């Protein structure tokens, strides 16, 4: 356990000194701020548009229909966060996971670690903890940014329930990003080439984010990035009934989005996640499986020839 702690500390220190990790983390934080602005801006603009429509109807002596976009609940302002966590958060997770393992592989440090009285699962544990702490730290900063935004915006005060749901949203986001961190680490251990160690998880990320949602609900790739469009119900028909029942339980990108939509109040009325497993449980199961995979992969790694081929 002590050995794991040292490995974890060394990995965290290396991550903090890595410019790439800092760059991605910085980009994520910038997007958190943009997300809050976008939510506010889009909502304000709709109000503006609606007022102009009312004026136009009034000029014709008619009464405008009711605003189809009702007052957005305060948490709904953060709806873009769900998209950014799924995009840059997941990519940041992949990078962090990859870097936490690949640096030592390239420098040949695993031969030095393996020649000491530490088990491979001890090494794996240290690395996994480093990934979890780094990602939780990153999301912690994002959460803090949101909290400050809500505290300084006078028009938006959150109820106790809303604060609780915001916390749950960040737990779900943390789990989601950690799963990509573990995925990045797994392929950084198992791939023979460094390029493949990034290429394979990126392919999985693209599949989970863009291909599976299309199969289950005909969500086109670009619509998958729009928090509202992505929540559109699936077309009717036997095909989608079948794909939903088979794929939704393992589609953790959709599980995350469903959870985020419910917690942040932007799910359409009557929305129901089409899976027999709850979305939070899906995220937990995925993480559990990935942790086991990383531990097994470390156990099978040949430390004497750990360097990449490229």
């Amino acid at each position, binding site marked *: 356990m002590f050995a794991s702690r040292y490995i974890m500390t060394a990995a965290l220190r290396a991550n903090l000194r890595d410019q790439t990790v800092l760059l991605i983390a910085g980009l994520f934080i910038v997007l958190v701020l943009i997300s809050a602005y976008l939510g506010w801006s889009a909502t304000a603009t*709709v109000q503006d548009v609606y007022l102009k429509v009312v004026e136009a109807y009034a000029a014709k002596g008619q009464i405008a229909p009711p605003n189809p976009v009702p007052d957005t609940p305060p948490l709904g302002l953060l709806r873009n966060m769900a998209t950014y966590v799924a995009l840059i958060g997941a990519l940041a997770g992949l990078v962090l996971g990859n870097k936490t393992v690949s640096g030592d592989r390239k420098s040949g440090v695993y031969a030095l670690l393996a020649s000491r009285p530490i088990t491979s699962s001890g090494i794996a544990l240290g690395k996994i903890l480093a990934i979890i702490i780094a990602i939780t730290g990153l999301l912690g900063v994002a959460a803090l940014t949101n909290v400050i935004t809500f505290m300084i915006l006078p028009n938006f005060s959150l109820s106790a329930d809303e604060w609780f749901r915001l916390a749950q949203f960040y737990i779900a986001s943390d789990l989601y990003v950690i799963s990509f961190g573990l995925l990045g680490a797994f392929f950084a251990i198992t791939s023979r*080439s460094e*390029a493949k160690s990034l290429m394979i998880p990126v392919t999985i990320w693209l599949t989970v984010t863009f291909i599976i949602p299309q199969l289950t609900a005909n969500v086109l790739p670009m619509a998958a990035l729009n928090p509202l469009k992505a929540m559109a119900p699936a077309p009717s028909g036997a095909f989608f009934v079948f794909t939903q029942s088979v794929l939704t339980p393992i589609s953790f990108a959709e599980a995350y989005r469903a959870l985020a939509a419910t917690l942040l109040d932007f799910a359409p009325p009557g929305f129901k996640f089409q899976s027999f497993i709850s979305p939070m449980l899906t995220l937990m199961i995925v993480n559990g499986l990935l942790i086991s995979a990383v531990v097994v992969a470390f156990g099978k790694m040949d430390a004497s020839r750990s360097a990449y081929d490229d």
Partner: protein
Amino acid sequence: MMISQLIAIAKKDIQDALRTRTIFIMTGFLLVASMVSIAVTHTAMGGRLPSDYSVLEAMRGFVEHLEIIGSALAILLGYRSAANERGHNTLALVMTRPIRQRVFLAGKVFASVVLICGCLTVVFVSISVEIMVLTGVGLSTLEVAKLAIGFASTGLYMTAFFLLGFLFALHLKHLSHALLTAFSIWLVFVLIAPQIGDTLDPDNQAVGGLFSQLSVPHAQEVEIMNKLGTYEVIRTGIEQLSPSKHFERLTFALWGIKGSYIGMPLSELLSAKIIDILWLLGYVLGLGGVLFKRQVNFTGD
């Protein structure tokens, strides 16, 4: 001598991509995504052929996959092309031979353009067959021409991202930073800029469209949007930055995914989309210019 050197470099790169199966993985992934997308879109339409249906309309999801996956794969191809030399420190061996830097770079770019075109040929031929099988309608000469122009635009679009990956992998001090920096830019160009443009569009704030929910006719919609001048300038400005958006506008028009272009003569359509074509060309030429202008560090330090 220069031509034979260029061919030698291109040949080696192509053989390398075939040997390591990179190009097969790339093509396979893009092919699966594209074919799934067309089949799903066709299924979602209930397999119907509406009266104003463009045979190529089912390609909307395909365009979006080309935008996202095509560009990501092109970056990987660019990264590999440079990393193969830098990672193995073979640049020094190559560049101590009587070869000009621009010939070396041209050979590498040429190889990757050939690989991209090969990958796209497989994908475009497969989806054309798929569309014909699914709809039971053969493609007209005009549709084949539109597909061919779309193919060329995709080649241009992917070349821009190839150059991005290649440039960073060739010039950044640490090779490991190159792929991630290129991917960060990819995120901004391909996903975030169009996403911001899309999310900020007031019409997208209500399911089914804000203006149609309010029964506002198109002319009045334009009038209202004009009143939101600055907001719209910022929104479209962000969209303009993205090569993906230009690629999307061009292919959506070409393939009749955007209804207003259905039935428009090809020459008229192309002149209506000339700005998007120029943007795409601009990205390729701009990045290509930087690539050929900058001195490469051959010592690997």
